[in-house]
């Protein structure tokens, strides 16, 4: 992997001792690992003083990362990032997964979607208004899907009607992850409902302040009992024209970069985490002489999955190398990555439930439900449905990768 030049500057007050090593991958890895050991010790202390809520823990973790300039390492320095090389990002993800620190779920949209969209389409004012805030831990949500517009996103009906220097927005969004914590929302709304034009051409892209009058958030509980997503009810919400991204009617095109961020970058660290999940599961089984180790069928199934996890990690490394030479839209392999990765998570969850036997069926009421195999398994469907379902991904693979004709 090519090493780019190390970050030379960072925001004031940042301890740059790790970033300073970005030119030497081994030294960088060691520095990240040492830092993560310290952070983990602080985390333990935090837990002893009373377990923090999901939100507090995520914000604490973001603050810890920002102290050393690793909050948004892939961003340009100008917007609060550290601009480290792809190789360093990969190394960092490996170390984060290894240290079992929390995934930055709360910031998924802000760090990836918002950044990908604004860096390509945002005005300079929008970039400077929002990206530094996002880098500090501002939470954003994504308001794309609607009750009637899921896989067929282009049929969305939330209306934005121009009224002077504002748009008045009415409609309903659904499945908006972590929107109950979000200060802002990337929103798709219809600015032109003329049935004569293509559905896609009537859509515009907005940055919506969630504290505006008329925005109501109603959490939806998912199958494991947690409520991580919500419905948004928008009634006469008045969004300034300056908060539109791209031209009016260009929203669909803008959204493609958002969706590309969703389908691409996010998966690498997740695959690295899966490695440790699988390794730890095995180690724990050996430790307590789990009965499935004596079951040839289960052993073979485990080894099959074990191989697939490794293949997945190898695939990501290859793709990241190739991605250096192409834009995300060109990366025709991205839908394959999504399907392979999410199907594998389902299969691993399914295996863990069965391998854990009757014990896994007993519900334990604790903060970290994902530690329980049943929760892990039922939640794993989320990834295979969200962000363009795996069925839609298969259509894309067939049509764009394999060149099979559209219906």
């Amino acid at each position, binding site marked *: 992997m090519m090493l780019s030049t190390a970050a030379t500057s960072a925001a004031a007050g940042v301890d740059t001792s790790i970033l300073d090593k970005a030119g030497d991958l081994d030294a960088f890895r060691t520095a990240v690992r040492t830092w993560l050991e310290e952070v983990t010790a602080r985390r333990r202390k935090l837990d002893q003083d009373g377990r923090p809520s999901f939100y507090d823990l995520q914000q604490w973790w973001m603050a810890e990362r920002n102290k050393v300039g690793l909050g948004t390492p892939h961003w340009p320095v100008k917007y609060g990032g550290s601009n480290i090389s792809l190789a360093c990002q990969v190394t960092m993800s490996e170390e984060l997964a290894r240290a079992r620190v929390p995934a930055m779920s709360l910031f998924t949209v802000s760090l990836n979607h918002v950044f990908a969209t604004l860096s390509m389409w945002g005005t300079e004012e929008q970039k400077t208004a929002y990206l530094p805030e996002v880098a500090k831990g501002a939470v954003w949500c994504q308001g794309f899907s609607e009750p009637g517009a899921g*896989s*067929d996103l282009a049929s969305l009906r939330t209306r934005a009607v121009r009224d002077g220097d504002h748009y008045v927005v009415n409609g309903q969004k659904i499945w908006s992850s972590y929107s109950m914590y979000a200060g802002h929302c990337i929103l798709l709304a219809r600015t032109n409902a003329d049935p004569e034009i293509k559905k896609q051409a009537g859509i515009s892209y907005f940055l919506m302040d969630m504290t505006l009058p008329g925005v109501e958030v109603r959490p939806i509980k998912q199958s494991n009992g947690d409520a991580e997503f919500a419905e948004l009810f928008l009634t006469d919400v008045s969004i300034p024209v300056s908060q539109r991204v791209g031209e009016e009617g260009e929203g669909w095109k803008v959204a493609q970069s958002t969706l590309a961020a969703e389908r691409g970058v996010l998966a690498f660290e997740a695959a690295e985490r899966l490695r440790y999940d699988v390794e730890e599961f095995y180690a724990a089984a050996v430790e307590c002489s789990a009965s499935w180790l004596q079951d040839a069928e289960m052993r073979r199934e485990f080894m099959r999955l074990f191989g697939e996890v490794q293949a997945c990690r190898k695939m990501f490394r290859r793709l990241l190398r190739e991605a250096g030479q192409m834009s995300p839209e060109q990366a025709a392999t991205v839908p394959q990555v999504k399907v392979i990765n999410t199907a594998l998570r389902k299969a691993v969850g399914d295996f863990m439930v069965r391998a854990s*036997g009757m014990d896994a069926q*007993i519900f334990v009421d604790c903060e970290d439900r994902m530690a329980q195999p049943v929760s892990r398994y039922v939640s794993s469907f989320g990834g295979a*449905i969200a962000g363009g379902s795996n069925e839609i991904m298969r259509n894309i693979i067939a049509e764009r990768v394999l060149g099979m004709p559209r219906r």
Partner: protein
Amino acid sequence: MLEDDLELLVQSIEDVLSNECGSQALHKFYDGENALDTDLWRQASDLGWLAIGLTEELGGLEMGYRGLDVLHRALGRAGAPGGFIPTLVGAQWLSQVADERLLQELMPRFVAGELEFAVPAALGGVALEERDGFLSGTSSLLMGGSETCVAIVPVGVVGGRGFAVVEADGRTAVMEPAELWDRTRPAGKLVCNQAKPLALIADADGAVARCYLSNMTLAVAADCVGAARRIAGQTVDYLKERVQFGKPLATLQALKHRCADLFLKITPAEDLLNHAVDAASRADRSALMWCALAKAAASDAFRFVAADCVQLHGGVGHTWEFDCHIFLKRALLNEELGGRNAILRDLAAEELNLAAMKGISTMEIAA
């Protein structure tokens, strides 16, 4: 005669369940907002369902495994909450292995709906310890959770294995409830401290355990196929209604094939179960083998179906408010009940081997 009775029975069960145990009521139960389990229980005992499988001498309706099969399929289809499986399995099992005295003591109470049974979720867990006729220790997980149930639990009696029939009294024998991911099923562990059992049933040759296995696997298999058919049907209905890209999703061939596959998984499992029920009804020598295979097939099918139904529903399938997760969690538990499918297939292999060594074919299908 039996056919007519069965038909009437099916009708009555379906009526009650469709009135009382609809999706809304089930979700309310899931969220602790009604007592659907006890309501259904009361109805079931009033209408005589609990006595379906027992002989007339024990106050039963004499409909045997056929009757039980119909009932468990219907309960599975409704996703009915409550301890129906352990109670019906417990009663049937005891009727086959307990002595006259114990049956006289328990069965009238059971038929009157005053008694629930708890039975092992599966065999092979820890056994209670028996000394001088008293029990101590904590059982492995039992299905059935009422505080005053009669539990049938494995014990390690001196000189061999066996089962104890213990009435939970809240003092020496306490049912400690366990909350499951599948909230429709009560379960718990029996904690004994010098508890005096109602009876000890020795099982040196494993015949009592085999009886448990036949009863439990048949009940769970029936629950699986009923439940699988329900959630699959509901998914097909959903796709017929859900419009994307200007037409119902059900018009897409890729999804049609997926739906067809759901039913292609369920149908053979149902027929294998039909065969096992017949074999058990005739007390066929190969009955246990077929029961074990039927449960494994039914539970594999249910698990596959329940999982794909989540995916086929899209976002709503991932929510608490839709039915999918209730059935998925039920499918996950069912895989464990009566023994994991792999263990049951191993058991079936042993049965086949024994029969083969005696030169007996196990594959005859009676007219």
